C-alpha cells in the first residue's frame, strides 16, 4: 500500500519539521530493504526506479531486491551489503525526513559513525530470527555516545518467525533492557516485515496482536535536534577576515544568540569586548538577533587578538578554559590508542596537540566487556584523560553538546571522537567567593635553591610492600642533596587531617583526593611531596594524577602478597587473618595494580638503597631532579 503524503510546498516548508534519522543495525538485518519499502510506501520513488530495480535484480538472477535502491555501488550490489552511508529524502504525513542508511558491517563502522553523527534520531533494526547481535549492541552504544536519545526499534523479518508475538516480546525485552542500561529509552518497538510491508506504513492482519505505532508513525513522532538556541552563547571562531578596512571575526553560532552591542568574552584568553556590528553581504551591517546554527561575521569595539579556535561567549556564561579534559571516545584507527600517546585533538575549530595521560576504561561495545585499561582497540570505546598543549574553551557534553565534543586525528585523518565528560576534571572549579592566593615566590626561585622541580611521587602497593621504607629513605636522600622533600604517609594523615574518614570505597576515594590535593599544592610550590599510600583503586589514583597533572609520578612497589604478609611490619596481616580488620587491603583481592606507572619496584630482590637509586634515576630522566649543577660541581 501507499500512504497519502501531502505534496511539498514552499509555504509548508517553513512549518514542516525536518528530521534526520539514521537506520542502523547488524548486517543483513534488513536496513536497506526497510529504506526501500519506506520510500515506496510514502510515494517518494522517482519514476522508473521500481522498474530499474526489477531489471537490476533480474540481471543478477535474484528475486526483487529493495536494497539495490540505496546500495548504489557495484560492490555493494554484488556482495549484497551496504559499504558506505547514504542519504535520501522522503516525507511522512507531518515530517520532512532525511534518511541516512548506514552500513552494519564492523569494518565499516567509520561510515556508520559518519552517517549517524548527523542524525536527530535513529531506527535500530533487529532480525526476528537472529535476535540481538553484537553489532546491534555496538550500534546502540554508539547512538548513545553520539548523543542520539530518540531510538525507535524495529524487529524485522517477522514473516520468518510466523509473526510470533512471543518471539517479538523476547527480543523487545532484551533490546529495551540493553538500551535502558545505556540511558536510552526506545520510543517504540515495532514488529515488521520490511520485504512484505507489515508494520511499515500499516498494521496488517499478520501483526493484529500489535497495537503500537507503525514505522512511519514512529518516525513522524521524532523531533528535530534539541533547541540549541536556549543554551548560553558559543561562537566558534573559524577565521579573521580583513578583505577591506573591516576586521571581521567569522564563525558559527553553536548555541545561544548574539546581537550588536552584546558584552562578550573571548575564550580561552578571557579577553572582554563588545560586539560593534554584525556584518553581512550583500547588506551590511545586519540588525537583530542571530541564533544557533547561523554562520556570522562580527566586528568588535576594540583591537584584540582573536584567532581561529577561540570561542566567544557572553560575560557570565562563558565556557571554561582548560588544559585538561576527560572524554569518552570511540576509536576507529587500526592502531590502538595507548596511554602516553601524543595526538592531535580538534574541539570545535580549535586544534591542539595533546597527550593521553591515562586510559581509565576500555569497553568492547559489542559484548560490553570491560578490558584492562591500557589501550583502546579499534571499534572500542574508552574513557581517557587528556592533557592539552594549549588551553581550550570547552563545556561538558551534558551541558552543551556542540562545545562538548571532540575528535582525535592521527596522521591527518580522524581516528576517533567522542564526548567531553568533564573539563579540568582534577582542578575543581573555584567558586566565585574563593580567591586562591598565589605564592610570593616564583617557581624558578625554589627550583634554583632545591635543584629540583616540584613533584608528587606516589608510592602505591600492598601493605608491607615497602612503600614507607623506601619513601623515608628517599626523603633523607633528597634532603641531603639540598632538596625539599616532604613525606605524606597515608596512615599518618589518617590520624589527623583525614580522621573523619573510614574505609568505604567513597571514604577511601576522598582520602586519596585530599592526599593528592595536599601533595599537588606542595608540588606546585616547588617541594617534592612523597606520598606512601596503598591507594588500591585505579580510578582513585587516576583522579590523583589529574589533580597533580604533569608533576605526578607513580611508583608501583610490586612486592608480592606472600612476601608482604611474611614481613607484616605493622601486624595488620595477622590481625586481618584473625578477623580483626574487615576492610584490610591485601588479603582480599581488592588491590588494582597500575597498568602504566612511571616506575615499578619489586623489593623482594632489591635493597632499599638500590630502590632509592632507581627512583632518583627516574626523577632525573623525567625532569624532576636538576642535574646540571651537580655535574658542574664534579668538574671543579
Amino acid at each position, binding site marked *: 500500500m501507499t500512504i497519502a503524503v501531502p505534496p511539498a*510546498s514552499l509555504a509548508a516548508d*517553513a512549518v514542516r519539521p525536518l528530521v534526520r534519522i539514521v537506520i542502523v543495525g547488524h548486517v543483513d538485518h534488513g536496513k536497506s530493504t526497510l529504506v526501500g519499502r519506506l520510500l515506496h510506501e510514502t510515494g517518494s520513488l*522517482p519514476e522508473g526506479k521500481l522498474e530499474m530495480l526489477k531489471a537490476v535484480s533480474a540481471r543478477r538472477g535474484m528475486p526483487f531486491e529493495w536494497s539495490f535502491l540505496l546500495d548504489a555501488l557495484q*560492490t555493494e550490489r554484488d556482495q549484497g551489503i551496504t559499504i558506505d552511508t547514504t542519504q535520501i529524502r522522503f516525507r511522512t504525513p507531518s515530517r520532512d525526513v532525511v534518511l541516512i542508511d548506514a552500513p552494519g558491517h564492523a569494518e565499516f563502522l567509520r*561510515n556508520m559513525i559518519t552517517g549517524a553523527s548527523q542524525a536527530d534520531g535513529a531506527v535500530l533494526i533487529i532480525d526476528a530470527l537472529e535476535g540481538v547481535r553484537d553489532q546491534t549492541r555496538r550500534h546502540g552504544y554508539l547512538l548513545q555516545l553520539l548523543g542520539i536519545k530518540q531510538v525507535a526499534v524495529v524487529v524485522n523479518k517477522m514473516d520468518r518467525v510466523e509473526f510470533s508475538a512471543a518471539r517479538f516480546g523476547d527480543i523487545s525485552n532484551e533490546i529495551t533492557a540493553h538500551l535502558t542500561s545505556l540511558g536510552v529509552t526506545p520510543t517504540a518497538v515495532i514488529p515488521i516485515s520490511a520485504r512484505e510491508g507489515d508494520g511499515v506504513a500499516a498494521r496488517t492482519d499478520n501483526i493484529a496482536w500489535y497495537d503500537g505505532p507503525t514505522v512511519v508513525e514512529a518516525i513522524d513522532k521524532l523531533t528535530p535536534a534539541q533547541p540549541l538556541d536556549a543554551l548560553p552563547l558559543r561562537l566558534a571562531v573559524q577565521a579573521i577576515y580583513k578583505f577591506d578596512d573591516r576586521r571581521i571575526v567569522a564563525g558559527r553560532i553553536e548555541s545561544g544568540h548574539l546581537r550588536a552591542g552584546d558584552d562578550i568574552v573571548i575564550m580561552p584568553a578571557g579577553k572582554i569586548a563588545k560586539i560593534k556590528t554584525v556584518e553581512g553581504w550583500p547588506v*551590511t551591517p545586519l540588525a537583530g538577533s542571530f541564533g544557533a*546554527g547561523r*554562520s556570522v561575521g562580527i566586528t568588535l569595539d576594540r583591537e584584540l587578538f582573536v584567532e581561529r579556535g577561540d570561542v566567544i561567549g557572553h560575560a557570565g556564561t562563558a565556557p571554561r578554559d582548560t588544559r585538561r579534559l576527560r572524554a569518552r571516545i570511540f576509536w576507529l584507527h587500526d592502531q590502538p590508542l595507548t596511554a602516553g600517546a601524543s595526538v592531535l585533538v580538534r574541539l570545535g575549530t580549535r586544534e591542539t596537540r595533546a597527550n593521553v595521560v591515562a586510559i581509565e576504561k576500555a569497553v568492547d561495545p559489542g559484548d560490553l566487556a570491560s578490558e584492562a585499561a591500557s589501550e583502546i582497540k579499534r571499534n572500542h570505546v574508552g574513557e581517557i584523560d587528556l592533557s592539552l598543549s594549549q588551553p581550550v574553551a570547552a563545556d561538558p557534553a551534558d551541558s552543551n553538546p556542540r562545545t562538548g565534543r571532540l*575528535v582525535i586525528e592521527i596522521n591527518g585523518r580522524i581516528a576517533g571522537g567522542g564526548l567531553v565528560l568533564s573539563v579540568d576534571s582534577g582542578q575543581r572549579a573555584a567558586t566565585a567567593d574563593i580567591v586562591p592566593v598565589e605564592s610570593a615566590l616564583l617557581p624558578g626561585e625554589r627550583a634554583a635553591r632545591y635543584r629540583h622541580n616540584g613533584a608528587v611521587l606516589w608510592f602505591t602497593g600492598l601493605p608491607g610492600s615497602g612503600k614507607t621504607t623506601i619513601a623515608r629513605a628517599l626523603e633523607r636522600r633528597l634532603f641531603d642533596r639540598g632538596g625539599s622533600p616532604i613525606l605524606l604517609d597515608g596512615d599518618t594523615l589518617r590520624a589527623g587531617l583525614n580522621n573523619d574518614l573510614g574505609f568505604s570505597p567513597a571514604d577511601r576515594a576522598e582520602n586519596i583526593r585530599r592526599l593528592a590535593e595536599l601533595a599537588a599544592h606542595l608540588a606546585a610550590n616547588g617541594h617534592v611531596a612523597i606520598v606512601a599510600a596503598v591507594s588500591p583503586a585505579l580510578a582513585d589514583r587516576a583522579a590523583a594524577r589529574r589533580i597533580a597533572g604533569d608533576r605526578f609520578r607513580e611508583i608501583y612497589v610490586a612486592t608480592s602478597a606472600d612476601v608482604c604478609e611474611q614481613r607484616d611490619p605493622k601486624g595488620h596481616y595477622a590481625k586481618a587473618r584473625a578477623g580483626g580488620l574487615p576492610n584490610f587491603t591485601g588479603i582480599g583481592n581488592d588491590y588494582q595494580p597500575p597498568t602504566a606507572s612511571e616506575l615499578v619496584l619489586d623489593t623482594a630482590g632489591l635493597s632499599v638503597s638500590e630502590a632509592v637509586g632507581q627512583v632518583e634515576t627516574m626523577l632525573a630522566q623525567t625532569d624532576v631532579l636538576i642535574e646540571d649543577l651537580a655535574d658542574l660541581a664534579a668538574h671543579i
Partner: protein
Amino acid sequence: MDHLDALEAQSIFILREAFARLKKLALLWSLGKDSNVMIWLARKAFFGRVPFPALHVDTGKKFPEMYAFRDTYAKEWDLDLRVDPCPPIDSVDPTLPPAARSAARKTEGLKLALAKYGFDGLIAGIRRDEEATRAKERVFSPRGTEGGWDVRDQPPEFWDQFNASPPPGAHLRIHPILHWTEADIWAYTKREGIPIIPLYLAQDGKRYRSLGDQDITFPVDSNAASIDEILLELETTKVPERAGRALDHETEDAFERLRVAGYL
C-alpha cells in the same frame, strides 16, 4: 531560522573551513544552477569577495548561453576566472560508452588543471540527491594522486569535523552544497535573485533540468517557464533530475566508474 537559512549557514561553515584549512583552493564553476548558487554562497561567506580562483574546465562544447553567462558574471562578480581546456577525445579510455567517454574528457582536463596550478582543494557543487553514488560522498572527500576516489576507504566525518590534510600530490574535493536538493537550489536562487541561464526555463514545451555539454545533455518535457513554475513542477514530477544526462544511463555502473576515476 528557516530551511533555506539553515542550508545557507551550513554551506558557509563548510566554505570557511575549506578556506581556513587548505592552502591552495579553487572553486569549480560549471556555469550551471548549482555552481552559481555555490559562488553566491562563497560571496556570502567572505563578505562579497571570492578569495580563491573560479576554475572552468572547458570542454568547448557548452551552450553559447553558458559562455555568455560566464563572461558576464565573471566580471560582475569580480572572479579570478581560470579557463582551462580539456584534452582531445582520443586521449580518453576508448572502452567507455560514448557519453561517458565524453565526460571522462572533463576528468582529464581537471587533472591537467590540478597539475598546472597545484591546487590542494577543489570546491565542487555536487548534491547527494542528484545521483546515488554522490549520496555516499563526504563533505571533505580525499582524492588520490591520480585524482581517484576510493569509495572503499573514505575517512570518517564526525559531526562537522572534516579531514583536511591531503597527502602530497593528492587533493580534496570539498562539497559545500552536498546537503541541498534540486528544489532547495531553485528556492534559494529565487529568494536571493541569483541570475540563471535561460535554458532552464521552458520554451516550446521543453527545458533543461541539468546543463552539461551540448552533445550529451538533452531537454525534458516541461512547461515551467519561471522559477515558481519549476518549483511547482518539482513537487509533482517523478522524473529524475539527470534524466537528460546520457552518460548516467549507458550502463549500470557508468557513473560510478567515472566518479571513481575522478569525475565530479
